[in-house]
């Protein structure tokens, strides 16, 4: 179905006024919950995400325990009121798939061998959704893990890029996600650029894929700086008393 909406004009300006390589506005806050071992509240465009980490703690039931390392158990969930048409509470197939790919991404950088038979539970709640929730969720999870004092090789971060009306752009917004030609969410370990999560849907030539991947990875690095700033802000303030 051909849409009437023009996603990007001749000057490269997108529907929300952004340039092709511009991120939506991001706000990150670490350590926002009282009970959780680590937590993070993140706003990314219209997305509002709350992530909380509990662990390492004993993995129950016993048969799920791995005698050599900890299990990283990420659970991505969308609140019923987070989308335009109310979503029935509970995990659906999409949430379970996203939970799985996020768990796998996190497992790679958490030093799991330090906690055999334990589990590290990562809860990602989408409170307000606007395209790119899995990237926002994983990014929030990275901050929550650091805030919980979990030993890691790196702080994972995610960002997506895609193609709209033939142009490669960074961080697809809602209409761009619905009407665009391709979407490529990527998560990396920023220190050495290892790719932890990669999914693609749409249509890209090999050359377009290269450019899109590069753009997404650049976006990841920008967001990574914001994660680190948020963590330092939270703990720096404790250094200065008097």
């Amino acid at each position, binding site marked *: 179905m051909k849409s009437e909406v023009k996603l990007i004009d001749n000057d490269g300006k997108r529907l929300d006024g952004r340039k092709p390589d511009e991120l939506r506005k991001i706000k990150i806050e670490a350590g926002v*919950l009282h009970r959780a071992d680590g937590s993070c509240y993140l706003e990314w465009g219209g997305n509002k995400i709350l992530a909380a980490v509990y662990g390492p703690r004993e993995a129950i039931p016993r048969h799920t325990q791995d005698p050599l390392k900890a299990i990283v158990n990420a659970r991505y969930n969308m609140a019923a009121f987070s989308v335009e048409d109310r979503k029935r509470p509970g995990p659906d197939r999409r949430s379970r798939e996203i939970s799985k790919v996020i768990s796998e991404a996190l497992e790679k950088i958490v030093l799991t061998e330090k906690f055999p038979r334990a589990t590290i539970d990562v*809860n990602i709640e989408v409170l*307000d959704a606007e395209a790119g929730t899995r990237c926002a969720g994983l990014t929030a999870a990275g901050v929550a893990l650091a805030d919980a004092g979990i030993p890691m090789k790196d702080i994972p971060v995610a960002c997506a890029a895609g193609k709209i009306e033939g142009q490669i752009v960074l961080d697809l917004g809602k209409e761009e996600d619905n009407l665009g030609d391709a979407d490529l969410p990527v998560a990396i370990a920023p220190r050495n650029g290892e790719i932890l999560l990669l999914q693609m849907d749409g249509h890209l030539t090999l050359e377009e894929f290269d450019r899109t991947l590069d753009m997404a990875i650049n976006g990841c690095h920008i967001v990574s700086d914001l994660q680190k700033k948020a963590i330092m802000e939270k703990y720096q303030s404790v250094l200065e008393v008097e």
Partner: protein
Amino acid sequence: MTVVPSIKRDYLSKLAKQGKRADGRKFDEFRKIEVETGVVSKAEGSARVKIGNTQVLVGIKMDVGEPYPDSPESGVLTTAAELIPLASPDFEAGPPREDAIELARVVDRGVRESEVVELEKLCLEPGEKVWIIFIDIHILDHDGNLFDAASLATLAALFTAKVPAERFELGEDYPLPLQEPPVSCTSVKFNGVVVLDPSLDEEEIAEVRLTVATDKKGDIRAMQKGLNGSFTKEEIKKIIKASIDNGREIREMLYKSIGK
């Protein structure tokens, strides 16, 4: 489940017998309450309430659908609660357990029985089409007294909600038709001492719990007893009085936060 050391139980009871609570509050005193509305843009109405460290987020979504067969000219109201694993090390992922169901039903009764939402004004076509209101309670941080935080957040969300008529091409958006709100206050008893707005520590050793919803006139609109202990008639009367007094103050705070 985390084990509560008997020493802590004894210490809290000892303090209580001397008229003190661990956090210094009076027996009929609430913790600091904060109300923030309009926090979820996709929801028709939303509110985040903090009571002490307890945090609850409520979102209101609306849809058009069929009425219940026994009330063909009335809008539909349905309440659900999720004790998401985010909020406490003791909450597990999975279908709602009895606590979540009880919470949803108690909040629902408080809203429904007080008729705070004028459901008869939400009928579009008698017997065919009415507005359906979904109240979704999302617990974010559990530090005791989820009932009152959830009830207050529900009211704040309802009072700032807009019926999404435009989206359904039924005219302009307008606020929900509402009446005076009931306010819920919860108390627990442990070792013969009754306290209002239990903290998590106090809830962990509570033997019995009573939630009382009162209206502007000081009349009782809903009550729920929980846990397997018991109350004397005197204790219940005292709880009702504390609920009416605190209910008044909380109602003022609610009006202020919704800009009334």
